[in-house]
């Protein structure tokens, strides 16, 4: 049987072997992994754990797992940066939720003053009441219907220092919420500047009313009662780049490997469609959410009523309408002084243009007239103002005031009028300047406060001389096309110790000639687009624009520009544009001409600026920061933003030298920095970052995506893409230790750089999916993150013998300019300071003048009073004994007085 079956059996065996062989081959052929490589098979419990972990992290993100070092903790460790310097430490998180802004589009400023008269400096943080943008869940899912909830404008009251010597702030809203009765709550909450003031905070902490669009404020005693009032400037609701007409235009590049250029059709860069606001004309809109209808953009004058119920919270009264200081323009800046020396405080308001119609990407750019409100208190005894800008020649109206209203267009061989702007056929503004900031300051030292106005591209910097308080004379030098800049903020002070002023006006900074910026905004034939933003950049080559910061010094009766003569000793992270290889070749002569490698011209975009004496050594240092959005956004944040620069003053007379000590003092405008690490670093963003887990100050890259030449030659710092969107900033001694602290406010945005950041998500059926970028240039939207306030506390200096200081409180109780706004002082014959209010973008300080004295205590003092008769303005005081580390009160009539008895 077996023999008979031998062949069939053998055949079957062969078939069996063949089949096995086939399976073996098939196993190999289908390329499954070796059995020894089959991963461990888990139990159901283990599977469930993995599933749970993945679900949790995919849907809920990484908040729980992230280990974010708090900056204050980091700062308390031993310094990794070898330096004798005592760095600042950052405590902004202690401000809590009201210290964070939800504002995405508009600026947020800060005003520092003593609101309740307790001797401690409080913070007023303006906010916008109607926000553009949609809410986002913790999982990063954007709502289809829910708008971002606005914060009320908030007064943070200084509660004194904690055990570590840091100031403790609490909001009026939270303080009221803890109270049992609400007797004065309505007046206390008027500070929120809501359309309809509320009488209590129920529900606790809630803010259900719509506030005005608060951009900034100044504190001053407008009614001469000794208490600091608030003048708040309000803007228009709007959003730029919504339509084809207002969209930014970028152009295809020519130099890529192995292919011809695309056609030269511009890409239109608009805001994400879910961020559109409609092109509502703020000039004509009225709003009816108040006690009575009002025009959008109405500013607010709140009189400080004192603390009527003695609960530590001041009460306020809105006297805007009665005082006639409302206006209805897109107001962004304000400065005050006694312009006519009549003994009361006047107001100058800088107006921009409804964001719907910003003309940066057009060849037209309108504006709105600025206001000069002359206080009639001295004349009439009534707190009313007379709007006199046009009469005084400072309204910024081009035709009426004969202002140059043109921009040079190389391609057209001449200048072109740009003031009249139509969008969709509609005239959208006035033929007027669009101004960000203004400063009233006696820059020519003739005892009359002069005026400097910072206008954006298309307009020149305006510099005016006060003529005996009766009018202003425009300095014609600045009518030149060279002064067409994107001027942002202004500060004026003596920086070289010659007892006369220097003026720093911030601008777009050096990026305007970068390979990256220019490559995208220039057509292939080398022409810039007709957008004013790029025309202005291009015009720098022929000295027909000025987009770097401007530095002027007063001598021989005039302001002389010293910008490219300044010298900066850079740190380990010099601005990218100090590297000539990052400059487009066609504009390289600008780099050399303007000394970008080692002067202020090489610095980045900034708002501000802030002058303060970091080490109390007797000279004022400079802090610069600012951005239109957070970094690493591929758009405005990368083009127009900076990492923060603290420039320590090392000037001598007429030689303006600075040393960049930003890292040493730990004041980079970058969150989560670990300065103790070598090299200093911060955690990488949770999305949109394809490198390692930390970004260090050493990490470098090339400019990518804008052509071969840029990639080949450029060299840029990764850390610069980690900056926050700084807007408002100010310096003041917040913990009352005699050293100037620094406060920087930031915008919110769908551009989080947090290690917890995620992509913006939406629900698509049951899935949660990421939202792509709105256009081919910018990066996809990320988590919506509020703009946290950075509150840097100055660590002081080790050798206090080199850091004497005094706080000076000037009192002119005979006038209504009670605290002598606009005064000039010279201490020890060598240090000159002015008490100015305004000029810094969206921010201001009102209070005692903190003056660093260096090695010598205060021995003598000269005060030039800002109000009243000029002949009596100068007062010289020799102290019986030197004064240091205390507040000195000087009364115009009585000389040095006891500060406790000095209040009115």
């Amino acid at each position, binding site marked *: 049987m077996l023999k008979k079956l031998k062949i069939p059996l*053998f*055949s079957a065996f*062969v*078939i069996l072997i063949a*089949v096995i062989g086939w399976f073996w081959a*098939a196993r190999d*052929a*289908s*390329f499954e*992994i*070796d059995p020894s490589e*089959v*991963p*461990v*098979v888990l139990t159901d419990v283990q599977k469930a754990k*993995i*599933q749970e972990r*993945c679900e949790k*992290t*995919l849907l809920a993100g*990484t908040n729980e797992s992230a280990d974010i070092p708090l900056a204050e903790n980091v700062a308390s460790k031993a310094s990794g940066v070898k330096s004798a310097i005592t760095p600042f430490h950052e405590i902004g998180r202690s401000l809590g939720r009201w210290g964070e802004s939800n504002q995405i589009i508009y600026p947020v400023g800060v005003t520092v003053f003593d609101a309740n008269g307790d001797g401690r400096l409080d913070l007023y943080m303006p906010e916008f009441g109607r926000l553009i943008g949609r809410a986002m869940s913790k999982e990063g899912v*954007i709502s*289809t*219907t829910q708008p971002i909830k606005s914060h009320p404008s908030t007064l943070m009251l200084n509660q004194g220092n904690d055990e570590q010597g840091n100031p403790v702030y609490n909001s009026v809203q939270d303080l009221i919420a803890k109270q049992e009765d609400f007797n004065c709550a309505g007046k206390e909450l008027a500070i929120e500047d809501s359309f309809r003031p509320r009488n209590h905070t129920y529900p606790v902490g809630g803010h259900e009313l719509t506030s005005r669009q608060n951009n900034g404020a100044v504190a001053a005693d407008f009614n001469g009662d000794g208490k600091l009032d608030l003048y708040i400037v309000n803007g228009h609701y709007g959003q730029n780049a919504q339509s084809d007409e207002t969209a930014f235009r*970028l152009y295809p*590049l020519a130099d890529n*490997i*192995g*292919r011809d250029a*695309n056609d030269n059709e511009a890409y239109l860069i608009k805001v994400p*469609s*879910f961020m559109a606001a409609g092109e509502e004309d703020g000039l004509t809109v009225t709003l009816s959410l108040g006690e009575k209808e009002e025009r959008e953009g109405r500013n607010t004058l709140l009189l400080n009523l004192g603390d009527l119920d003695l609960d530590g919270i001041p009460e306020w009264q809105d006297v805007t309408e009665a005082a006639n200081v409302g206006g209805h323009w897109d107001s962004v800046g304000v400065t005050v002084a006694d312009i006519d020396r009549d003994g009361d405080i006047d107001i100058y308001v800088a107006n921009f243009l409804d964001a719907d119609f910003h003309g940066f990407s057009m060849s037209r750019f309108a504006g709105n007239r600025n206001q000069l409100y002359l206080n009639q208190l001295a004349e009439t005894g009534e707190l009313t103002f007379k709007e006199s800008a046009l009469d005084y020649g400072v309204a910024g109206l081009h035709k009426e005031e004969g202002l140059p209203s043109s921009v040079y267009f190389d391609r057209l061989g001449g200048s072109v009028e740009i003031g009249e702007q139509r969008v969709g056929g509609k005239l959208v503004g006035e033929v007027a300047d669009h101004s960000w900031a203004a400063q009233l300051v006696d820059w020519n030292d003739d005892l009359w406060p002069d005026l400097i106005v910072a206008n954006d591209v298309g307009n020149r910097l305006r510099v005016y001389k006060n003529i005996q308080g009766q009018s202003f004379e425009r300095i014609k030098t600045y009518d030149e096309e060279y002064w067409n800049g994107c001027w942002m903020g202004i500060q004026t002070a003596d920086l070289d110790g010659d007892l006369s002023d220097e003026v720093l006006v911030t601008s777009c900074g050096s990026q305007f000639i970068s390979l990256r910026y220019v*490559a995208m905004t220039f057509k292939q034939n080398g022409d810039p687009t007709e957008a004013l933003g790029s025309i202005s950049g291009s015009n720098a080559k022929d000295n027909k624009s000025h987009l770097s910061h401007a530095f002027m010094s007063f001598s021989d009766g005039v302001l002389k520009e010293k910008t490219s003569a300044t010298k900066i000793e850079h740190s380990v992270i010099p601005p990218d544009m100090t590297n000539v290889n990052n400059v487009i070749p066609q504009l390289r002569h600008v780099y050399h001409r303007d000394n970008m490698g080692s002067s202020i011209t090489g610095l980045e975009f900034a708002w501000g600026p802030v002058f303060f004496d970091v080490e109390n050594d007797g000279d004022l240092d400079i802090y610069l920061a600012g951005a239109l959005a957070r970094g690493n956004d591929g758009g405005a944040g990368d083009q127009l933003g900076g990492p923060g620069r603290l420039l320590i003053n090392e000037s001598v007379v007429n030689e303006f030298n600075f040393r960049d000590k930003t890292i040493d003092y730990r004041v980079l405008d970058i969150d989560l920095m670990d300065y103790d*690490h*070598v*090299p200093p670093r911060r955690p990488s963003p949770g999305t949109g970052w*394809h490198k390692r*887990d*930390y970004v260090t100050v050493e*990490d*470098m*890259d*090339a400019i990518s*995506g*804008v052509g*071969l030449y840029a990639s080949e*030659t450029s060299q840029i710092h990764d850390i610069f893409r980690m900056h926050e969107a700084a807007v408002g900033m100010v310096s003041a001694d917040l913990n009352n230790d005699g050293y100037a602290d620094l406060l920087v406010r930031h915008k919110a945005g769908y551009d989080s750089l947090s290690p917890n950041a995620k*992509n913006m998500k*939406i629900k698509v059926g*049951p*899935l949660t*999916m*990421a*939202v*792509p*970028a*709105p256009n*081919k240039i910018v*990066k*996809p939207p990320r988590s919506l993150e509020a703009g946290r306030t950075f509150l840097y506390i100055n660590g002081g200096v080790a050798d206090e013998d080199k850091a004497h200081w005094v706080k000076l409180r000037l009192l002119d109780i005979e006038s209504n300019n009670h605290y002598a706004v606009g005064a000039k002082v010279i201490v020890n014959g060598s240090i000159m300071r002015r008490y100015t209010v305004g000029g810094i973008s969206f921010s201001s300080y009102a209070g005692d003048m903190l003056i660093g004295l260096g090695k010598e205590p205060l021995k003598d003092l000269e005060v030039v009073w800002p109000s009243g008769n000029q002949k009596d303005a100068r007062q010289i005081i020799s102290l019986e004994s030197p004064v240091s580390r205390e507040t000195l009160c000087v009364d115009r009539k009585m000389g040095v007085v006891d500060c406790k008895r000095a209040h009115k």
Partner: protein
Amino acid sequence: MMWQQMIDSVLNKNSNVMSKFISKNESFDIKEILARNKIVIFNVLIAIVVMVLLIVNFGSSLVMIVESNLPIKVDYKKEYTLDSGQPLTGNTQSLNRYHSVLNSLDNVIVDFSPKSKLFNFTLTDGKKENAKKVFYKEIDSRFLTPLLPYNISQEITEFDAYNLMLAEYARVGLTLSYQENNKHFGSFWATEGVFNKGGEYLFQDNEILPNSGILPTRMSITNNCLSPGLWEINAKDSVGEMFHGWVDLPRDIYFDAIRANNNIVTTDWDLLKILKYKTGIAVLLDLDTLRKSKGIIQDSKLQLADGKKIGSYSSQDSRRKTQKNFFTITRDGEEFEAKEFSELKAGDTFELIAFVPPGVYSSTKIEPVIYDPNWNRVTIKGVSPLTSYENNESKYNDLESLELVIYSSDESRAIVLGNIPLSLLVFQEDYAIPAFGVGVLSASENIERRYLRMSEGPKPHYAYLTHHKEGKFYGVNNHEFGMEQVYLRPVERDGKVFLRITLVSYERITDLLELEVALDAGLATKIKEVSKTYRTPLFRGYIDNNIL
């Protein structure tokens, strides 16, 4: 099992490990065989018939006999999903995923010319008329296939075979820009009407909606790391993945490409054997074919990097995997919470989510990798590279190149890293070794950078995980030990220059270990000098997204 035990096991159970790579050629008399084996031959014929029948039935799953130029099905629904329905993937998923027109292009035709060494891929919807087509045009096959970038002899050696295998099981991918033509490298292109130039999402009735016809910012092709011939096709928009498909490349095409690119003569059978995933190997490294030694520059102790965080990553772009907790750490079988590596001890285990056929992350399987900090000595040698991608004009090797040998505490194991150009060891950027082997390319790279890397970049480096015995190094399969990449970065601290060496895990999920060596003054000075003038090379920085 500890690393050392695993190595020992490999060596003990494989006394003749080389035979795993190369089949022996034996001479034989065919007539004699025929005469003696009539019945056997008869049965073999029967077996062939049976196999043909089986193939007819199951042919589509038999990659090895798929012919060229016939459409291959693209599978785009292979990912594991979580209970929520979310795909388990390391990639960000765009709202356009599952909505893209690309999902309808489920056929791919591949052709390869051994003469030009170029691949062409055509994705199509399979219609005969008005078919929608997306072309991957003229992709240099060297950019994707295993390479032997050094002088090889006529007959493949065991070392060559070992290198091919290491390269095969590394993920090697390319991303392409949308261009009709490029003179130097491949691109993707589509017939009219496939894509539109609208926004990447639509905004209608207050809703954000997918745009199914959106033109991808990049499409990619990837030689998957799991098995020879399994490739992936992928498309991305600005935020993430909008399409992902898997395709089995015809074996004849794939093998032809490998043969052409390496100028080797092998049968499919031998090549299949060479490329087969092997465990338990130890191949004597022939380093003299890769470099000319100039002698040892430095012999120093290594130390663990201080303060290294668990879940950290180097430049391998693993942010999403660590965010999504693609790993846990266990000690004695129990999950163990640790924030820094200093809290770990030898024998703790990284349990990584497994990457399984056909190239997806598993929601049920893990890959354990044992934490092993016992590496404490390094030698640094000067070398002259003998490797090349045909980029002999490279300027990056003008300065010295280095070879690092990192020894385990008992010196029975070593990691050999070589042909590292000093000119690219700088403070500003990581030097990446994206895979073990010689000249193995990275998991994903823009084609323009790969073109630049291989035409003017540095000479190919090498990296091997080895058993060390009596001065000789025997290469093992690094994948067995969960080790996939190495990153090098000098750092300056307290006036000294340290070289930081980061070992990266299986699937590039997270860093496994970070070591540091203080460099002697000579090297330190050179690195400082190089760093001063360093500029990101084009092969690292250039990108042409074709959008500007």
